[in-house]
């Protein structure tokens, strides 16, 4: 069985010119409605005082975490992490609880408030263009980037490439590959000249939030089940009591054969 290679984006903030070709390409490729987007430009943009200025732009979309919090928060198992990198989701399973939005440390999944329960597909986010990568194409945003600010490839190789750059050009970059270890590692690696916070990226610990949340969630399910059991038995008790009471009343009125009633 061939080894499945972990695919990764690499974004180089020093090369991004904020042209937004990635955003348009994503919108078309994934048929995103005109009032929605899966990519947005984050960060502080212009910084400094005339004439000492800097400009930063960040192509922000799903980080495709190795330990996705959205996945662990989802009560219906709509999310999954593919062995080759992308964090995908099944919109048919989504019940619109928005736990994933709260769980994601990067604020990525967004909820479609225009759609009702019946339409399904409440949550939307970058899928790494699985329909493209499965046939050997690069994701739409990467394929069109005119300045190669976005790259795509195998995680090991891009990590290597990123570290080589940091060594070769120590003045140009901050000495850090964001996403290498953040939140347990992500499939979106970032090189930057500006502090990552200025790109709109949160300072998240290496230990995946998922582990922490799973500890909490570990209590949640027994807790929920426990409460469920208590409430169920209460309800059952009440129901039995009511039925008994009803039957007693009927017996008093007229002793007839009972009809099945379902609530």
């Amino acid at each position, binding site marked *: 069985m061939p080894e499945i290679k972990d695919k990764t984006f690499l974004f180089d903030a020093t*090369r991004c*010119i*904020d*042209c*937004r*070709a990635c*955003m*348009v*390409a994503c*919108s*078309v*490729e994934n*048929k995103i409605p*005109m009032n929605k*987007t899966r990519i947005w430009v984050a960060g502080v943009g*212009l910084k*400094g*005082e*005339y*004439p000492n*200025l*800097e*400009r930063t732009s960040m192509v922000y979309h799903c980080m495709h975490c190795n330990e996705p919090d959205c996945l662990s928060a989802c009560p219906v198992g709509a999310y999954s992490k593919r062995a080759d990198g992308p964090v995908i989701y099944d919109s048919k399973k989504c019940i619109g609880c928005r736990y994933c939005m709260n769980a994601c440390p990067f604020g990525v999944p967004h909820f479609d408030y225009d759609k009702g329960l019946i339409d399904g597909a409440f949550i939307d986010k970058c899928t790494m263009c699985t329909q493209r990568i499965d046939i050997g194409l690069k994701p*739409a945003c990467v*394929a*069109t*980037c*005119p*300045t*190669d600010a976005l790259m795509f490839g195998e995680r090991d190789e891009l990590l290597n490439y990123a570290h080589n750059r940091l060594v070769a*050009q120590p003045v140009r970059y901050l000495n850090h590959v964001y996403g290498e270890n953040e939140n347990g590692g992500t499939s979106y690696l970032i090189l930057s000249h500006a502090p990552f916070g200025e790109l709109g990226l949160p300072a998240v610990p290496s230990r995946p939030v998922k582990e922490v949340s799973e500890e909490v969630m570990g209590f949640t399910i027994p807790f929920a089940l426990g409460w469920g059991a208590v409430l169920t038995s209460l309800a059952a008790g009440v129901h039995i009591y009511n039925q008994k009471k009803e039957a007693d009343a009927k017996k008093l009125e007229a002793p007839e054969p009972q009809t099945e009633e379902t609530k």
Partner: protein
Amino acid sequence: MPSMRGVFLPRMDGNYLEIVMPSTISRRDFLKVGGATVGAVLIGQFIPPQVAEAARVNGLLDATNSGYIPSMCEMCVWRCGLLAKVDGGRVVKLEGNPEHPHSNGKLCPRGQSGLMNTYDPDRVLTPLIRVGKRGEGLFRKAAWEEALDLVAQNMLDIQQKYGPEAMLFSTTHCLSQFQFENLLNAYGSPNYGTQRSLCFNAMIVANLVTYGMEEPARKYDDLKYIILTGRNLMEAISTSETSALSQAIDRGVKVVTLDPRFTKTAAKSSEWLAIRPGTDLAFHLALINVIISERLYSFRSVNNNTSGFDKLASAMPQYTPEWAAAITDIPADNIRRIAREFAHAAPYALAHNGWRTSNFVNSFQTERAIAILNALVGNWGVAMFPASGEESGVLGAPPQPAYPRVSAQRLDGVPWKYPFVPLKIGVFQEMREAVLSGTPYQAHGWFISRQNPAMSLPDRGRTLEAFGKMDFIATIDILMNDTAWFSDVVLPEASYLERYDPLNIVGSKAFIRQPVIEAQGEGKSSLWIYKELGTRLGLGDFFQYADEEDYLKQQLAPLGVSLDQVRQKGYVELPGEGPDFSEPAWNTPSSKIELFSTTLDQGGFAAVPQWEEPPAPPAGQFYLLTGKVAQSTQFGTQNNQLLHKYSDEPRLWMNVKTAQTLGLADYDLVEVASSAGSIHIKLEATQAIRPDCVYLTPGYGHLSKGLTTAYGIGASDSDLHVTYTDPISGGQALSQTFVTVKKI
């Protein structure tokens, strides 16, 4: 359930979107005045019988009409190669064609959004004939026969009554331009307007007198030092050149950018010089001064390739860095350092000639100074090369008779007033002025193709006035653009994804633009429209091609390649060895790069660049700057919903401190006024601009209500721009307009 009113168009999601024809016309009016084709044109079937079938035969589409078809982008004039992904007969995605040197597999945001131009719900899909007053926006649909007959009849009437010179023809750089020129030359009018004088006439004319060529090609591969003047490559994207600059920066090349704004190019540069507008010439003169006085130039290049060095050298001593510092606001030490660094990096150094330097009446001399700077450091063959011409003798062409002799003067003053401006480029704004003055004679008709003078020419009020002088105006476009809005007949063109155009030569290949889907509605190619019109004008002999495919077959005939082969591959290799860079041939009087221009000398102009002080804004006024953004091209893409989605709101940039002084805050609604007119727009208080300048993104402030996405957004710089023409190059001095800004 859509009603029978208006036109139904496919939407991105495949549903039908009903749109009402432009303006407030009601169905009642529509029917009352309606012609042959009133009613709905339902594009229900997306299975394009001809296009898909041909593509299937060529193996590009499968049995379900899905696959990739190679063609060419037309979202700007760079013409990237593209691969159109077609699914069930609809274009669903555009990719850059890796085999095209202009795209190298990439497309910019405009290129990526191209399919939305084709599927724009505002598309004009039938010929329209005006029924209301000009500018009222009332049109009725008409059949092609009727519309073409009407255009031809008006053109013949004007020809008969006033002579062919009373008919103006104008178009923008496009692949069918040759056939447009064919039409106007056959008709016999000398009056031809392009957009060039509003863009880079200064660059073209300066290169012609210096190098004997319009624009030498540039190569970034080996560069170590680049000076960018008037070329905002990270926002005015030309995909391959933007990529090349980005790669050069990535390699560590030093980039010095001159711009009064902190553009996205400035942000990626090693050094940003917030130069005072109109003083780029002083900066470059000082660089030349240092390079000559410190003997930093290439002796070999100067001796072998140039003429007039002594005359240049004797004129330069006055232009010291100290002198330039006082004019440009750039410290003398910096100028001296940059001159030395530039010369030191030579020949791997490039002073980019820029495109948007035609902004002051001294811009021609700025371009001359840039051309001379490159020649002095001897970067020919390293950074600069002869451009591979788009015209080539290797392709065939339909036979045609000789054009009639044209004896009338051109209204734009070329060449009788502007002897150096090439005839095919012209001075567009002067043509408009001549319409208004009626001298040397009165024009009566205007035939416009894919151009929008109501937005592009300075001083819009005067352009609308010029429209009023016309007996007849006809416009070809895919949309109801602002000029079409004021036209008598609007002819719908098929979009660039729906039609053929003549082949385009890039390097050693000729690329094809071919339809990737069947034309929607009744859109037709320009090749077809010009031929039909020519035939009706009695000029059929000039259009000896049966249809678009026949035209292309005649082009391919000498190569022995079938059209199917070209359609399949997207291009054809041309015979020969391609451009030869080793033997430069400068088409100048001295056959050298002319540092001292004998042509200019004979014309009575400064033969070596000399400082010309540009006007500056009086107290309380600002330089009005314009410049590109990556999400739009000129005036034609603001209605594209995908670009609209990802565009910034166009506001008037003003330096934060200046705004504070004037008591203005971000998002305040302000009135901006020049001697030409005034606009209302929201303010953007920003650090990214000189305190004595304001900036407006061009292309907004549309007049046509037929552009439902773009209408009502922003304001047009053409309402403010005052018309100033550079006497040598004919370029419109776009930044020589000064404005006041006040809160409303």
